[in-house]
């Protein structure tokens, strides 16, 4: 499911990024590679997310979070 549907405080694993090479590479450079664990710190402001991934905090806008596919950790 897309990251945009995940609620506050949940942990998920990244499965895929549906995007052209430029942005995909950028996200990957920032540590968003397949299988990485992420926590949603805030999805408060109408679509923008604050994520915690590899010990850093990333802000991702709503268009980004819709294209990142994740699965929840069971």
């Amino acid at each position, binding site marked *: 499911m897309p990251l945009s549907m995940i609620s506050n405080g949940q942990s998920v694993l990244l499965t895929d990024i549906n995007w052209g090479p430029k942005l995909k*590479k950028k996200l990957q450079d*920032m540590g968003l590679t397949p299988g990485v664990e992420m926590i949603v*710190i805030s999805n408060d*402001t109408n679509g*923008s997310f*604050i994520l915690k991934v590899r010990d850093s*905090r990333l*802000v991702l*806008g709503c268009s980004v979070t819709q294209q990142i596919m994740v699965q929840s950790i069971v």
Partner: protein
Amino acid sequence: MSKSITIALAGNPNSGKTTLFNAFTGARHSVGNWPGVTVEKKEGKIQHNNAQINIVDLPGTYSLSPYSLEEVVARNYIVDESPDVVLNIVDASNIERNLYLSTQLMELGKPVVIALNMMDVAEKRGHKIDCKKLSELLGVPVVPIVAAQKKGIQDLLNTIVDVSKGKIICNPTDVDYGKEIEAKIKETIEVIKDNIYAHKFNPRWLALKVLEEDEAILKTIKLNLSKLQSHEQIAATSEMSLDDDFESVIVDRKYTHIAKIISKAVKKPKVFGLTTSDKIDKVLTNKWLGLPIFAGLMYIAFWFTFSIGNIFLDLIDGYFGALGESVGASLEVAGTADWLNSLVVDGIIGGVGGVLTFVPNIAFLFIAIGILEDSGYMARVAFIMDRAMRKVGLSGKAFIPMLVGFGCSVPAIMGTRTLEEENDRLTAILVSPFMSCGARLPIYILFAGVFFPGKESTVVYSLYMLGIVVAILAALTFKKTLFKGAAVPFIMELPPYRIPTIKGTGIHVWERVKAYILKAGTVIFSACLVIWFILNFNLSGMVEMQDSIGAGIGKVFAPIFAPLGFGNWQAALSLITGLLAKEAVVGSMAVIYGLGEAVGEAAVDGDVVGFISTLKTAGFTQLSAYAFMVFTLLYTPCVAVIGVVKRETNSWKWTGFSVAYQFVVAWVIALLVYQVGGLLGF
């Protein structure tokens, strides 16, 4: 040893590079622009054990891929300028992501030294890092430091010198890309090894770039040697057998490589809870509280600028007043000609002093801005503003250069380089000057002090807010007309909150205040001389002010401003001089009204020897004074900004447009303020 060593500082944004740079160089660093390079670089020199070390601070990047300008700049510098040592700053509290860049830097083939910064933060979080082990696994020296406290700096310098002398050999471990890719790399190295350009690069790295079809590299090689046969086939075939695209696989293998190293050298407690930063973020970036908190903090910042700044303003102003009087008196005693006396007392001490009296307010403004920036709050504002900015068609990131504009529009416009989309960048360049810069502050302090005693903070706060609103509305207009397009994806890292250090923020503030004082001594000084001259002379010689050239010029333009409520030649002339530098508006007023030394007093106490009545005779009322402030807030920026707009847009068309439309916007809004305000009975 006489040979100097050049080191390049590279690292992720916010890994503490600037802090380390300052720890190295103290206050001696010089900020300068580099030819041909589009990102501001800092350079510094230090002596260490008889070795001279030149430090070049490269832009912070996450990667050395060719997708953004800063990354290309950093990469080209290391490849082309060939520094003796690449000093890679790694944030120990964020080690995994930071080492990703390190693997790329090491692949470039230059000696790399890793400075493991913010060890204290990592330790506080319970991360135990075995530096020796890490160094062994990476194959390059790793030195733990705390740049903010200057810990480990000597060790680091010793290591750098040793590496440059060859006493320590860097032998970085290669990332294992897997059998298939490794085979391709070998093949490619064979193909490109005869390329005359290849000697400059590490063959393995070059091979990887060719396989990745890195356009910049392919272009350079092609330009230098027209035929690099079959590389395209290499890249194409290599993608066939992988389950993801080539680039993704490379990134993934790099992170796998790092994860392996970290599992051996770093022990982290496996509590995945929220840190203090995260908890603060829960409040400050809250859906409902975010904006009000931002507005509140801004108000406190301006209140601080006034109430505390004005205490010092009072002190300084007395000094200039006394200086003017005593110099005037001694010149009279010495029998100097009247004109010279007037030039020195009214022109120089009055004009320049009039600008310098506001140094305390400027300093406190920058202290406030510095604290907000250094604490990490500014980045949150981008997140908070994203909702509004997205409606405009920009991302929250575009708000950052605008916030920088509260200090000065020049760095604000340069800061737009972080925006990926050219149209968004142009939009941000065109609207940033609406954010009220520090140089405009003296005008507000003066006018608000005289016409709105007791309500200065509120009046000035309203101007700053008006600036933000106009900037956002202008951006909206541009995005709906000239630069259509959806908001670019918003991707940004949030720095952890840090308590600003006196030294860090102090340097920040000092640099700005120094620039302000220097400007007063140079640009404003010359401007005041010219203003004094044109106000005291016309073609027939020295005359009364209202018959002077300056008054003549002012009178030509004054009718333009009549509908705005300040159609007097004094205001018109001051505004024209404001094109040189916004501070000059106050400087000219001081010369015109012959009360340079009283400007500060006027701002603090409201009335001084007929200052109000002089301004009133000139036609100023509370309402027209407010309209005047609105106009100065919004109208055409100073020449420095116009110059940087030209440089950054590389187009006279856009530069001309920027100059003209801002004038029109300022005129229309000041008109609305004056006319509507008049109807409402203000």
